[in-house]
């Protein structure tokens, strides 16, 4: 009930949009594709293009070979992408369609023009969640495209995980500031946050190019941000092309960003520039200035595991108490990670993960003992309204506010934004609730 997760293909679709001139393709009935496109569109308020195999009852009996080969032909003729990224759905998975052999058939029939590519990933929704789908598609990019040679490249791979286009943009800014030559993949900035100038570009400027994806195999190391979304691809790269993998948390909050910057500093052998140090300093300054308003505030975190691990740590570093932690995406490491990051600072924490870890449960917990703040996706607004608790929207999907596409929450600057949002929530609440004579001008 009231799930805190959704299905794999939507994640695969999002990841695929982070490849330059890629058309994601949903192999299954057209409903899934329509739902996934709608979900992403509502979140990003941008066109989200993807095609579908439009299965019918006949297809579900005879398999999707004819549909997919025809789809490939139509897509390359009518929509002219450089690459098609196929993901499966529950239906094609249950039928057991073998995508590589269907693609081989399409190539044999001459439906794939010279120099164009079709890659695929399996995304059965009855396993994992949307985060798993994202991870699978990124791993497939490696499987299909990464090449071990030439080894000479001095680049570093960064897999940003399922974060917003604004976050990817910020990660690139940090890498540039640090003088790290990099390949970021996938990269949805300039794809799902494009300008409006009266000319539509069906394939926007952004996205990691196929050429760059090939070169990931020659990079010196890979930084995988977020265990759930990025580890699989980094491991794959290591196995396939012997690129050493460094697994890090999403750089959300002070210490996760510290670890990211330190890793860049150590692994890439670059100095940390004053610009970044000052950003860190400004964050710490703010944390100390406003510490009294965060101290002992009870917070509920619900959403995707990589985000929550980092958010939990940041909240604890602000002396808040992340007491309820819910993620529908199943995975044993989740609880271990969260506990590790909390460092026994919140002994009363309740953690729910996987089956039954949903918003209904969270609501029950909150009813038993309320919190001061909820951080989660838009669906939390029903709990927030019922219980009169402020909500900060974070994660997927955000259907009713903007900002996530424009302003990052990663890095020190992102942490400053998160901090400002939390502070706003607490202080607005205080201003609203304080008795007339207690209303403070200066806070």
């Amino acid at each position: 009930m009231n799930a805190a997760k959704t299905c794999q293909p939507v994640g695969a679709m999002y990841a695929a949009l982070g490849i330059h001139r890629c058309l994601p393709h949903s192999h299954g009935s057209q409903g899934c594709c329509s739902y996934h496109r709608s979900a992403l569109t509502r979140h990003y308020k941008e066109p989200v293009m993807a095609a579908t195999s439009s299965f019918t009852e006949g297809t579900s009996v005879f398999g999707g070979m004819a549909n997919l080969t025809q789809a490939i032909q139509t897509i390359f003729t009518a929509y002219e992408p450089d690459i098609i990224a196929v993901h499966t759905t529950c239906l094609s998975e249950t039928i057991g369609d073998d995508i590589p052999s269907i693609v081989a058939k399409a190539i044999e029939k001459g439906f794939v023009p010279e120099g164009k590519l079709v890659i695929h990933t399996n995304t059965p929704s009855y396993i994992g969640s949307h985060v798993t789908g994202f991870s699978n598609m990124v791993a497939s990019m490696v499987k299909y495209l990464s090449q071990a040679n030439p080894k000479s490249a001095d680049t570093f791979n960064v897999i940003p995980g399922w974060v917003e286009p604004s976050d990817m943009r910020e990660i690139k800014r940090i890498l540039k500031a640090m003088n790290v030559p990099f390949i970021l993949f996938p990269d949805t900035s300039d794809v799902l946050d494009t300008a409006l100038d009266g000319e539509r570009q069906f394939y926007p400027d952004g996205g990691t190019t196929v050429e760059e994806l090939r070169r990931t195999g020659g990079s010196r190391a890979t930084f995988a941000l977020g265990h759930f979304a990025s580890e699989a691809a980094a491991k794959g790269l290591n196995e396939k092309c012997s690129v050493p993998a460094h697994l890090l948390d999403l750089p959300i909050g002070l210490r996760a960003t510290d670890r990211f910057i330190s890793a860049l500093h150590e692994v890439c052998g670059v100095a940390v520039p004053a610009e970044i140090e000052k950003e860190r300093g400004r964050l710490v300054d703010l944390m100390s200035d406003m510490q009294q308003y965060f101290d002992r505030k009870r917070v509920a975190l619900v959403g995707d595991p990589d985000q929550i691990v980092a958010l939990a740590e940041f909240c604890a570093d602000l002396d808040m108490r992340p007491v309820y932690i819910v993620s529908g995406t199943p995975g044993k490491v989740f609880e271990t990670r969260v506990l590790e990051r909390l460092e026994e600072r919140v002994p009363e924490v309740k953690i729910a993960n996987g089956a039954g870890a949903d918003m209904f449960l969270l609501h029950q917990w909150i009813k038993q003992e309320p919190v001061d703040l909820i951080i989660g996706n838009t669906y939390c607004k029903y709990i927030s309204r019922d219980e009169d608790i402020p909500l900060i929207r974070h994660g997927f999907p955000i259907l009713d506010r903007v900002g996530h596409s424009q302003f990052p929450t990663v890095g020190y600057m992102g942490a400053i934004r998160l901090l400002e949002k939390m502070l706003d929530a607490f202080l607005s609440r205080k201003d609203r609730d304080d008795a007339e004579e207690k209303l403070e001008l200066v806070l």
Partner: protein
Amino acid sequence: MSTETLNAADLKEQMLSAYPPKLAKKRGNQMVVNRKEGASEDEVPAIGANTRTSPGIITQRGCCYAGCKGVVLGPTRDIINLVHGPVGCSFYAWLTRRNQTRPPDEESENFMNYMFSTDMQDDEIIFGGEKKLAQAIREAYEIFHPKAIGVFSTCPVGLIGDDVHAVSRKMSEELGINVFGFSCEGYKGVSQSAGHHIANNQLFKHVIGRGTEVPEGDFKVNLMGEYNIGGDAFVLEEMFERCGITLCATFSGNSTIEQFERSHLADLNLVMCHRSINYIAEMIEEKYGTPWFKVNFIGADSTAKSLRKIADYFGDEGLKARVEEVIAEEMKEVAAARELHKPHLEGKTAMLFVGGSRAHHYQDLFAEVGMKTLSAGYEFAHRDDYEGRKVLPSIKVDADSRNIEELTVKRSEDEFRPEQQVRKAELTEQGFEFSDYVGMMPEMDKDTLVIDDISEHETEMLLRKVKPDIFCAGIKEKYGVQKFGIPCKQLHSYDYGGPYAGFKGAVNFWADIDRMINASVWKHLKAPWKN
């Protein structure tokens, strides 16, 4: 822009030239230039509709499940809609359609804010999910004690052979409430439309006719195919009440199962969205003798016309007088709004590609302020919605639609009301139209372009070549359209505005369209140094 700039035949050729030959032929059948010069009013060309979307096309369409659960059943607040399948299908349908509902008080049941799914895992895909389904029904019952639970099948369910109907029957017995299943797997049919049909069938089989308490009122109607997006049904409810017309049930908006159960006791069925609900109207008439006719409450003039038709049907002078009073009263505000917005909108052009009825009805709203529709089409309608019900006998049922059950309905021995049919016969004699829908095309101008199941490629072409002043579609199209600097009005969700039905709705709609077309932002798309 004006119609002269749209050379429909040319445009069609250009659109098709991007496709492989076989596909071009298929799409060609689904694009027609409306009424060539010299054709008479009711002579429209045949259009290909309700055929499968070719794989690889970027389509607006969704699936059967979406039509069944999302559209028809979703808006009823006291039925628990439990989706049997993996989590996604249910997650995406969770509150995304904006059907509003207003329980009479705090204590009344309302499950519409909840999302129920059996969250199938790989084990269930392999070994079957019937046990998990039964357990989920039991749990939902234990927590909420609803009057009824509907169970919706998603794609994998049909494939692994779970029998949702058997489980529903069993649970009905165990719990003593109405539990009924829908075989609305997403791959059935070619679009949401199949799901509408399946939803109609099951409602008719499992819900309608169970009630016995005759609603009070002299003029009892059901409103069908009105889903209370943005509060449309609230506006209509209020309007009916002022006219003294009793609304027994709305299928489905602000509705309850009890209203459905006794809907067969109404005197007349009013059909708004013909596509999604005509089956129930037909079946109720077959079994209980209640006549139906088509109404349109989108557009102020259209609303007045429909209200008058209802009053004429009942033939009661008091009712007629009240209807005239309401119209006169409402028209004051409407006239003022028209006067305000018409100067900003007259001569502007629109295109509408959406749904199974709105692409037609909203043309009235545009026409009432002097706007022209250049091109339109449905997402999931059938030929009768384009060309009128008169083509029904000539529609060939293809393999994709054949296996959607057609219920055979027999006249009910004791509940059939012959006097209803006598009234219908009398009125028909006088030229009154029943059981009819003229369709979109006869009401569209000559040389407009009608496109069924429009693709993203075709949409882009229309926008590039014709540049209408406003484009109406859904969420997936919205932001792509706007990148061209053309405002896009969502006619599924109303862009979170509305209501747009009835007299009040017309006033809201014109205000919104005026605001959108004349928004300042469109003047600033180019940086000043680029001008």
